[in-house]
Structures are given as structure tokens and as C-alpha cells.
């Protein structure tokens, strides 16, 4: 019996995600190296493995902010992992410690792939899809740190557009769900409306309120 078989669907999709993660990792390494030197960006990618929070916290530090502000900014950017973790929870296995560890596999792309149309969750898809992204993210960071001089300005290469385009590609796969379109429009409107008044990250977390549309109708 092949114990890896249940993970293969996730692994297959995860390779595509991994190539995108590699490119994002390169842009993180290029941006972070002048501020942090060569080692810290790689350590950050190894232990944190979270694009949004790493870019956000690095931007705060680059602007002269202190560690507390950078931690707060990054934490708010990752606050969405709270409801995402609740969604994944029933599918995870084992002791509380093991569940908490399996929960670390929650990253945006894998999570979006693993949520099912009925609100259920596929543990093997989540873990399978995350496995290729982790080494790709770290390797991309190393390439960015080492090759920054040769790569040049990430903005000139349009690398800052990778992130939203990556999420747009994931979103497209979701829009076939019943009521996904109105929820997406409302969530987007909430996020943009709150952006000028709240710190980065919180508008994204509060956009999740749009999913309460799921409570309407259907008895």
C-alpha cells in the first residue's frame, strides 16, 4: 500500500503553487537582504513561512518601525489563519498537539484548495499541497538573498504583482461555488473600504464577515 497515495492530488497542485512560491520567495529575499543581511531573511522564511506577514513586517522595519510594530503588523496580516484554522480543524487528526502541528500546514493556496463545496475540509489535500511550497519558499529566499545584485529592483520586474495575481488565480477556482460571487464582491468592498482606516491585515480579516451570506436562505 502506498501511504502517500491520498496526498497525491494535493502534491500535484502544490508543485504549481510551489513554483509561484519560489518566485515570491526570490522577491522577498531581494527586498529583505539590504535591510537584514543574508542570514535573517532565510531564517525568517524557514521558521515563519508566511509571505504576507514577512513582506508586511519587513516593510515596517524598513520604514524605521520597531520590532513591536513589525510583530503587530505581521500578526494582523496573519489573523485570517484563525478562521481558516477553525475550518480545517474537524479534518485534522490525533492528539491536541498533533492537531496543532498539522494546523501549521495551513497556507492560503493549500487551504483554498482543501475547503470543499459543502464546507468540509480535506486534510490530505492541505498537507500534500503545502509540502512542495515550503522548500520552494525557502529556496526562493536563498536565491533572492544571494542573487539580489544580479536580479536588480524587484519592482522593475513587476514581482510585487505576483502576490495579488496568485490570489486571483486561486479565487477564480472558487467562483463556481453557489453565492461565491456576491460574497467575493462584498468581501472585496469591505477590505477596500476599511483599508484607509485600519492597519493592514485587519481589512482582510474583516472581509471574512462577507461569508456570513452563507447563513441566508437555505434552512
Amino acid at each position, binding site marked *: 500500500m502506498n501511504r502517500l497515495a491520498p496526498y497525491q492530488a494535493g502534491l500535484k497542485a502544490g508543485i504549481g503553487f510551489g513554483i509561484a512560491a519560489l518566485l515570491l520567495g526570490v522577491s522577498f529575499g531581494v527586498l529583505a537582504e539590504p535591510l537584514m543581511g543574508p542570514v535573517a531573511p532565510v531564517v525568517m522564511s524557514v521558521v515563519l513561512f508566511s509571505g504576507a506577514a514577512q513582506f508586511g513586517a519587513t516593510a515596517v522595519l524598513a520604514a524605521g518601525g520597531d520590532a513591536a510594530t513589525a510583530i503587530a503588523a505581521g500578526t494582523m496580516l496573519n489573523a485570517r489563519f484563525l478562521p481558516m484554522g477553525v475550518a480545517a480543524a474537524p479534518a485534522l487528526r490525533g492528539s491536541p498537539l498533533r492537531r496543532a502541528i498539522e494546523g501549521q500546514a495551513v497556507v492560503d493556496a493549500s487551504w483554498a484548495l482543501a475547503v470543499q463545496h459543502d464546507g468540509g475540509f480535506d486534510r490530505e489535500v492541505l498537507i500534500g499541497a503545502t509540502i512542495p511550497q515550503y522548500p520552494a519558499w525557502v529556496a526562493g529566499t536563498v536565491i533572492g538573498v544571494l542573487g539580489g545584485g544580479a536580479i536588480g529592483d524587484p519592482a522593475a520586474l*513587476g514581482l510585487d504583482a505576483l502576490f495579488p495575481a496568485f490570489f486571483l488565480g486561486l479565487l477564480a477556482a472558487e467562483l463556481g461555488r453557489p453565492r461565491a460571487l456576491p460574497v467575493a464582491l462584498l468581501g472585496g468592498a469591505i477590505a477596500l473600504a476599511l483599508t484607509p482606516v485600519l492597519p493592514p491585515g485587519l481589512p482582510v480579516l474583516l472581509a471574512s464577515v462577507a461569508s456570513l451570506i452563507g447563513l441566508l436562505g437555505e434552512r
Partner: protein
Amino acid sequence: MTEVWITIAGLTAATVALKAAGPLIVGGRELPDRALAVIALLAPALLTALVLTGTFTDDGELTVDARAAGLGCAAVAVALRAPLLVTVLVAAAGTAALRAVI
């Protein structure tokens, strides 16, 4: 540099806690149907928010810059059912091309 290492340690601890909280609080319990109906729609809400804030904000302010052109290119790629990797590369190329011109 100390600030960098404190940031890495603190942010890692916070992120691990955020990801662990749901699994620890819910455990193996089945979620009620109403919660599942909401969860099924979490992804479109969160992903749209990430797309729009990633494109139209800069330093906490709303803005329109070359990333919007990149997103437009990505939308065309998505409409043509391009693979995800092609979509992100098209977005980067579109953004870079516009920046090279203006």
C-alpha cells in the same frame, strides 16, 4: 539587527499560535451546518480581499499604480483558463512593461 531577530521570534510565535488556535479550540468536533455554510464561502471573501489589498494599497493607503495593469493582465489569463503559473508571470510582465514605459 536586534529588532530584526525580535521580529522574527515574535512573529513566528504569534503565527504558530494563530494556526494552532482553531485546531485546539475545535478539536475533532463536527462543526454545525450553519458554520459549514459560512466556511464554504470564506475562501472567496478572503481571497478577494487579498487580491484587492495586494493591488490597490500602498503603505496603508488606497492607490492605483502599475500593479493594477498587472492584475488586469492576470484577469485576462484567468479568463482564458491559463495555468496559475502563467497567470502570475503575465501579471509580473504586464506590471514591469508598464513601469518600463512610464
